[in-house]
């Protein structure tokens, strides 16, 4: 096993926090559909995806714990918004299924590329996790792609319009996934992660092809303002209420077993 220098720790922690917080908050948002989905079969499918996301968050908080951070429950349920490193995309409330599906697609294509790039990471815990979750993420992308193509290209005028509007709303938020951090260069140089710029390029290529198959119009990335800030702890008004809700029970007896 490669021993990583201690100086790398802040960069590693930052990467793990960004990934884990994204997965936790999006999993939480997805889980809000449980029992309220558009059809029983989809309710079941989407709940599995939500569970996978929360499972990934848990799996990412563990190496953080090994790097000296508190245990996963403490990290996930007791921090407040400024300590979170998730992007704004995952914070927004669900709204309609159009918004949820489009967010799911744009997020999971990025996840698939991110984990793909991490399979060859020098940081073994991440490389191992990337190989382990490959199948789950593949299903998430398959699920999202099918839905968006069907509702965009094979549905009604109404569903096409809804998906187009959802795309326009979600796209700037999704660009916020790739907010460059001060650690990007170091992580790339050390062979841990090639960086957000590389990720965004790959992502845009895949997304463009799916969106084209869905007969939708991708906004010009040059003309939209990416929703940055999340990676620096600056969040939307929606995150703190979500965290208060998520922590309501566990924080009522913080030292008890639940």
């Amino acid at each position, binding site marked *: 096993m490669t021993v990583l220098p201690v100086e790398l720790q802040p960069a590693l922690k930052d990467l793990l926090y960004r990934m884990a917080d994204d997965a936790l908050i999006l999993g939480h948002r997805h889980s*809000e559909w449980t029992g*309220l989905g558009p*059809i*029983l*079969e*989809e309710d*079941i*499918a989407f*709940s*599995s995806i939500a569970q996978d996301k929360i499972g990934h968050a848990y799996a990412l908080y563990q190496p953080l714990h090994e790097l000296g951070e508190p245990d996963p429950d403490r990290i996930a349920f007791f921090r407040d918004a400024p300590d979170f490193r998730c992007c704004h995309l995952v914070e*927004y*409330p*669900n*709204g*309609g299924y*159009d*918004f949820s599906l489009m967010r799911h697609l744009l997020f999971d294509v990025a996840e698939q590329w991110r984990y793909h790039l991490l399979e060859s990471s020098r940081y073994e815990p991440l490389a191992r996790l990337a190989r382990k979750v490959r199948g789950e993420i593949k*299903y998430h992308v*398959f*699920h999202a792609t*099918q*839905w968006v193509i*069907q509702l965009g290209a*094979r549905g009604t005028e109404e569903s096409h319009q809804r998906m187009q509007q959802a795309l326009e709303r979600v796209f700037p938020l999704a660009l916020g996934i790739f907010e460059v951090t001060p650690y990007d260069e170091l992580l790339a140089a050390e062979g841990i992660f090639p960086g957000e710029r590389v990720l965004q390029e790959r992502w845009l290529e895949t997304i463009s092809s799916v969106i084209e198959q869905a007969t939708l119009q991708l906004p010009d990335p040059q003309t939209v303002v990416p929703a940055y800030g999340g990676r620096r702890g600056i969040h939307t*008004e*929606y995150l703190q209420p979500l965290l208060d*809700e998520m922590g309501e029970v566990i924080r009522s007896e913080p030292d008890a077993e639940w």
Partner: protein
Amino acid sequence: MGGMWHLSSELAGSGMSAPRTVTIQSLDPRINRLRIPAELPEFTPKPMLDEWEPYEVFWKEKPGDQPVHVGTVRAPNPEMALVLAKEGYCRRGKTYTIWIVRTADIYTFSPDDTDIFATVPEKTYREPDAYKVVQKILRLKRQQQRERSSEEGE
């Protein structure tokens, strides 16, 4: 804009211009976010096929297995049937793969015709038990022995 811009128009109208209606107060914060009017709107029944067509799901636990029929899903087309059947029937345990087929494309006998499978018991010539080869071999061996000993005696 208020915090509810994201809600679909059927429910909350669009943001600030939405009329203030009395909504259901639930213990479930998810339900409160849906802002459901306390007065139930008129109910319009859903049309047939609103929940799409039935597809049958066949499941293989591991390579080499026969596919087993495990149930059904409603889906608008085969691609979506696969997407939806996967978590419906394979979220626990191991799965190698699944097959799906539109229920309307499956042909079977009418329940009244299942006696078509009743066959007379005399057709033993196609059952392995009907062939008592071992006894014949024993008989053959005894015969060979008898023949050998009578040859030696000559």
